[in-house]
């Protein structure tokens, strides 16, 4: 079977505008969550988020581009540029035809929707900008990435709420492994920090007003973030033949559906996804040293996830590390798995496990090694990235250190 490796990574999120900046923040356990700066913030009860600060779109894009690029597209393009640049790939000829882009997003161009609903409903205008549709559509980011890098193969966008990125990257992995493509640009992007995006989440009453403290007994909900993570997945022989630097190998993927409840997570569905990824990777569960948790910081997710890990790993659950980096970069919803994959790469490549910050007090229902508050040096052979979405759709990726 063809093997799949990662030869490029890029990101912009509240922790930094590049992979090195983000990994440094994760190593230092820095928190990207703070007061939100968005329009009509006074009408929100949740006023914090992991927002990308000091972001000036005009520093990266010209007027014509901004007319077409929603914030989530901008984040995707910036991240893709870093990833493709690192990979050193040039997409021409046969390679261009056998390369595509698969992205995850949940809200798509939500800022564009929010702004234009305001224009027609609140301001009563009867005319909107001609590019509202191509700007807001969920596949806009994937399409612009494909145009920017001449990716002419299979390209589409996946929306499975908080698991979107993992589902997307799982598809990219499967396509290369099966021979449908030789290289894929893949990951996810989200820009939901606008009035409507936060207000909708507020309604569900699962948001924290003061911080994201996954696995801690004092946790009281999730905190939204924004940004993107993009990667270049490449067929191993292709990468090896050109002497590319390999960041990590993708060795397994599994997805399951709880088929139970639209918001409450299920231990069984999550455990099946974890075990499925291990089976797909053909490895013993004892090989796993680190799990980047879904770890949203809600009461329900964290205890269910820990129970699922205990189920899937048996005794080994006590010997592995599991951390939630959402404590630092917030919950990027459809983009979250992509940014979180960076923590897996850091563990495998650099031997540094990102911490769960904000950890205050043990919760007996989350009694695993959650790497509280401080990063840890450790040799990790295999890492998993969990994503368990609303709607009960689960997706778990397994990565191994570069061959």
């Amino acid at each position, binding site marked *: 079977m063809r093997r799949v490796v990662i030869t490029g990574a890029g990101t912009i999120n509240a922790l930094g505008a590049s992979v090195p900046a983000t990994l440094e923040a994760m190593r230092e356990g820095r928190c990207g969550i703070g007061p939100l700066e968005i329009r009509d913030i006074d009408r929100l009860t949740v006023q914090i988020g992991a927002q990308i600060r000091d972001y000036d779109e005009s520093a990266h894009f010209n007027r014509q581009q901004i007319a077409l690029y929603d914030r989530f597209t901008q984040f995707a393009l910036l991240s893709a540029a870093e990833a493709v640049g690192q990979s050193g790939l040039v997409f021409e000829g046969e390679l261009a035809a056998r390369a595509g882009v698969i992205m995850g997003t949940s809200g798509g161009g939500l800022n564009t929707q929010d702004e234009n609903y305001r224009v027609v409903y609140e301001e009563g205008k009867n005319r909107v900008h001609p590019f509202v549709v191509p700007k807001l559509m969920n596949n806009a980011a994937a399409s612009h990435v494909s145009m920017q890098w001449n990716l002419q193969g299979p390209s589409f966008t996946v929306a499975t709420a908080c698991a979107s990125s993992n589902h997307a990257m799982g598809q990219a992995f499967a396509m290369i492994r099966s021979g449908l493509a030789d290289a894929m640009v893949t990951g996810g992007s989200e820009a939901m920090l606008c009035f409507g995006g936060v207000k909708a989440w507020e309604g569900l009453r699962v*948001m924290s007003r003061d911080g994201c403290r996954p696995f801690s007994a004092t946790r*009281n909900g999730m905190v939204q973030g924004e940004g993107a993570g993009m990667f270049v997945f490449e067929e191993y022989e292709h990468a090896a033949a050109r002497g590319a630097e390999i960041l990590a190998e993708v060795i397994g993927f599994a997805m399951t559906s709880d088929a139970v409840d639209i*918001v409450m997570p299920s231990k069984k569905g999550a455990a099946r996804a974890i075990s499925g990824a291990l089976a797909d990777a053909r490895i013993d569960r004892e090989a796993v040293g680190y799990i980047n948790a879904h770890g949203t910081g809600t009461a329900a997710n964290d205890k269910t996830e820990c129970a699922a890990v205990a189920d899937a790993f048996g005794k080994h659950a006590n010997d592995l590390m599991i951390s939630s980096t959402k404590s630092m970069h917030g919950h990027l919803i459809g983009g979250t798995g992509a940014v979180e994959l960076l923590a897996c790469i850091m563990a495998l490549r650099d031997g540094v496990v990102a911490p769960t910050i904000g950890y205050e007090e043990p919760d007996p229902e989350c009694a695993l090694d959650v790497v509280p508050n401080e990063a840890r040096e450790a040799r990790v052979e295999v890492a998993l990235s969990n994503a368990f979405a609303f709607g009960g759709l689960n997706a778990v990726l397994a990565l191994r250190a570069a061959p």
Partner: protein
Amino acid sequence: MADDVKDKVIRIIAEQAMLDPADISMTQSLEEIGIDSLGLVESIFAIEEEFDIQVPFNANEPAKSEFDISSVASIVGAVEGLVAAQKA
């Protein structure tokens, strides 16, 4: 005013549980009535809309909430308190 609040809260809970208001007893918990966590959040939303109040409730820490949801009676009491506080 008190009975008014009580009747309205019971009507909201009954509607959520798809029961007749007459079948709701003040001593019952929402769980006994068959209202799950989603139903609870929806009921609180309906209460906020009905009385134009803000109910302090976080689904992550229902026990810590100042809004006591342990029974129909406690909910009615809490809503009466919020309505009175708003008028004050």
